[in-house]
C-alpha cells in the first residue's frame, strides 16, 4: 500500500518506515548511533522523535500493515543502501554461527529453545546466545524474521515440537549447572 493509500506510512522527518526498521536493526547489532546519524544526515533530536512517533503509528494502525512491513524491513535492514556497509564488531566464530542459524533451521530452533529456557531460569537469554555463540540480538532477530516468512504451515509443527524438545533439554542443563531447582527434593 502506498503512502497515499495509508497515510500512516508517510515518512517522519524524512525517515521512512523502511529506514526506521533498518536503523533499529543496525543499532541492535551494535552499530553506534553516531555512525547511523552521520549516514542519514539526522541528529539525536530528530531520531528520538522519529523513534517515538513510528511506534505510536504502529499502535494506531488497526490494519497491522505497519507492524508487518516493519518486520519485513527489519529483516532486510542489513542491505539498506545507506547502512549496509556498517557492521558492528564480530568474531569468526560468531560469523560462523550466524551463517549456521541462517541456513540450518534446526540449529536456529535449538537456540530459540535454549534462549527461552535461559529466560525461564532467570538468565538473560539473548546475552547467553551472544556470550556462547557470538550472535548479537539484532542478527538473531533478523534471522528469526527470515524463518518466519519462509515457514510452511505443514512444517511448522515439527519445528515447534523440536524447539520445545530442546527447551526441555536446556531447562534441565541450566539448573544442573547452577545448583538445581528449589523443589528438586520434593517428589510424589
Amino acid at each position, binding site marked *: 500500500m502506498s503512502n497515499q493509500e495509508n497515510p500512516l506510512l508517510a515518512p517522519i522527518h524524512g525517515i521512512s518506515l523502511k529506514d526506521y526498521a533498518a536503523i533499529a536493526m543496525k543499532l541492535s547489532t551494535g552499530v553506534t548511533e553516531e555512525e547511523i546519524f552521520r549516514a542519514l544526515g539526522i*541528529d*539525536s*533530536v530528530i*531520531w*528520538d*522523535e522519529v*523513534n*517515538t*512517533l513510528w511506534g*505510536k*503509528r504502529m*499502535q*494506531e*494502525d*488497526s490494519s497491522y500493515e505497519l507492524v508487518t512491513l516493519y518486520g519485513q524491513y527489519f529483516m532486510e535492514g542489513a542491505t539498506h543502501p545507506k547502512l549496509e556497509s556498517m557492521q558492528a564488531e564480530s568474531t569468526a566464530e560468531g560469523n560462523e554461527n550466524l551463517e549456521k542459524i541462517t541456513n540450518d533451521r534446526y540449529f536456529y530452533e535449538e537456540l530459540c529453545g535454549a534462549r527461552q529456557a535461559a*529466560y*525461564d*531460569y*532467570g*538468565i*538473560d537469554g539473548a546475552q547467553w546466545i551472544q556470550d556462547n555463540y557470538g550472535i548479537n540480538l539484532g542478527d538473531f532477530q533478523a534471522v528469526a524474521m527470515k524463518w518466519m516468512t519462509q515457514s510452511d504451515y505443514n512444517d511448522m509443527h515439527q519445528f515447534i515440537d523440536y524447539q520445545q524438545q530442546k527447551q526441555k533439554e536446556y531447562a534441565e542443563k541450566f539448573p544442573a549447572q547452577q545448583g538445581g*531447582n*528449589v*523443589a528438586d527434593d*520434593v*517428589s*510424589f
Partner: protein
Amino acid sequence: MLDFFKRLTGSNIQAPPQWLDEFRDNHKRWFVFLDKLEEKMDELGRAAVPELIAAMREDADPYHRVHYNMLLGVKGQYHHIRGKAQQVFEEKVAGFFNFNVGQQAFGSEFYQLLQDFYDDCTGRYETFEEKYLSWLDLLDEIGAQDLERQYQAILHEYEEIKDRFCCKQCGAQLSIPKLFFINSYIGCPYCHTQNTFEPSMQAKQLEHLGRSLAEQRTKHLLKAYEADKNPASYERYLREMFDEWNKIVPDLQSQNERFYERMLEDFRRYPSL
C-alpha cells in the same frame, strides 16, 4: 478431606478392584505432595520478595534489568514447581482416573469412588493453583509499586532542574519549558543558538512507564469488567486508562487518542478477545 473410604460397607461391597490400594496411596500422596510444594512456594516467596524489592530500589539501570532477570528466575522456579504438580496430576490423578473409570459400571459404588477421588484431588489442585497465582501476582506487584515512585521522582527532578539549563554558546540561563522525555531543541533567545537538551535516563523512562502506570491506576476498573463482563465497563476502563495516560504524558495525547480509537474499535468488533 472427604473420607470416602468409609463408604465401603461390608454387606454391599463388590469384590474390591485391583486398583484400590493404588487409589488410596495416590490420594494420600497427592495431598502430601501438594502440601510440600506449597511449602516450597512459601519459602521461595519469603526469601525472594525482600531481595526483589531491594533490587528494584538499588538498580540504577532505568530499565531495571537486574530486577527483571531476578524476577524471571524466581518466576521460573514457580513455573517449575507448578510443572511438577501438573505432571503428577496428569499421571497419578487424571491418568489413574481415566484408566480405571472405564472399567466400572456407570453409577456403581466403585465408579462413584473414582469420581469422588477425582473431584477431591482436583479441588485440592485448584487450591494449589490459587496459591501459585497469588504468589505470581505479588511478584508482579513489586515492579508495579515502583511505577508511582518512579513517576514522582521524574516530576521532582524536573522541578529541580528546569531553571538550571544554560546555553552552550553564551552561557545564558534558560528555562526548560516542559518535561521532555526525548532529546529536544531549546533555542537561546539571546544568541539564537539551537541547544540540544538531553533528558536524564530517569526522565527518558516517562513514555515507557506512562501506559503501565495508567493501567495500574485504573486496574480496579478492569477488574470490575472481568467480574461483570459488561462491555460498558470495559469501555469505561479504557477511557479512564487513556485519560490517566494523557495526564502522565501530555505530549503524546493526540497520538494516544488515535490509539484509544483503535482499541475501542477492536473491542467493539471482537468483544470476546
